[in-house]
């Protein structure tokens, strides 16, 4: 009799426990935004451009529809933000594994005078030869900078040192339809960026 009572109590307790766990799980997953970056609504058409990659081939953004494009503006002599961002891109690519085939990492110069095709190749390849390093002439690049809201201010080098450029440090994410959907401030968490890319890869495949 006593054992029957204990059995009933255990059954009742287990049901209550599972209902509680389920309720807490549902409560925690409520109304959670799916993307971690700064989302642009409505998504705008990413400004199309044609520049030259580190191998001397033309790179037209619209030719790369069907892939996610992670875009960053910087320069090869940058002492801090650019190498840190490209190293982060490399970590993201590693975390994505095979899924990284669906993502292109693109680095566009803000210093066309110093960033030649050869210099860009040397620099980008030191991070990952599959990354794209784009350069061009100032007239080619100026509308690109303007349309992506890139701020830059050049400081001539002193005593023969290289020129430095103060520039914005935002990373842009363009979806496979060519829409600019997300931006990330510098220093944004790598895992959260990976989550966003995985979510977008899964959504675009389904």
């Amino acid at each position: 009799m006593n054992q029957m009572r204990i059995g009933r109590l255990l059954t009742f307790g287990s049901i209550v426990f599972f209902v509680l766990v389920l309720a807490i799980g549902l409560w925690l997953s409520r109304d959670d935004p799916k993307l971690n970056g700064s989302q642009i609504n409505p998504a705008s058409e990413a400004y199309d451009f044609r520049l030259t990659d580190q191998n001397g081939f033309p790179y037209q953004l619209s030719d790369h529809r069907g892939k996610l494009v992670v875009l960053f503006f910087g320069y090869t002599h940058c002492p801090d933000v650019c190498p840190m961002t490209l190293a982060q891109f490399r970590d993201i690519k590693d975390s994505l594994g095979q899924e990284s085939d669906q993502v292109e990492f693109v680095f566009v110069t803000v210093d066309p005078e110093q960033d030649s095709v050869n210099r860009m190749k040397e620099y980008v390849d030191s991070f990952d030869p599959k990354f794209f390093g784009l350069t061009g002439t100032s007239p080619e690049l100026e509308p690109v900078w303007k349309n992506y809201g890139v701020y830059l201010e050049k400081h001539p080098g002193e005593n023969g040192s290289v020129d430095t450029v103060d520039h914005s440090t935002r990373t842009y994410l363009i979806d496979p339809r060519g829409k600019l959907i997300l931006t990330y401030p510098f220093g944004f968490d790598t895992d959260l960026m990976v989550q966003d890319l995985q979510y977008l890869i899964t959504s675009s495949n389904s």
Partner: protein
Amino acid sequence: MSPVVSSITRRLILLALISIAGVLLVSEVSYRLLREDNSRAPGLIQLVIPAGTAKRIAQGEDEPSIPEDMVFVVGDVLSVKNEDAADHQLGPLWIPAGKTASLPMRQVMNYVYSCSFRPSQYLGITVREPVTWTSRIGAVALAAPPTLVFLFVYSLVARPIKPGRRSVRAADRGEAA
């Protein structure tokens, strides 16, 4: 149930209640005394950049009233609608003209960002853990068990449980009767 087990159980239950009450008291008193901007649940924070803002700033007029430092809690979503004809940057958000940009605050952080609104061109953003009733209950749930263990060990030293104490007393009562 043996008298020793029964004594331990009774003592544990009593001390658990005392621990919960004590921890709850300390937690609530410190919460009331140290209450800050993060004592709220996460939510949606919406800002609007009015049309003509860039023009007014270029003419040296007052910028929209944005505080120099903005304090958020983890889980907040900052949404900024740009009704201006120019792109704007507000901290971590870049808002193209005519668009809305929104950013969920996922992590605790303390940063200074550039801002196209402020004469200084800088804006401080602080994101803290929110202190809500769930986190306060969580704190009690985390602090009560070690307090219980501490009190129980202390009670064993201060007032040891003697096996048979109860049964001896019961026998005494039987003899007296």
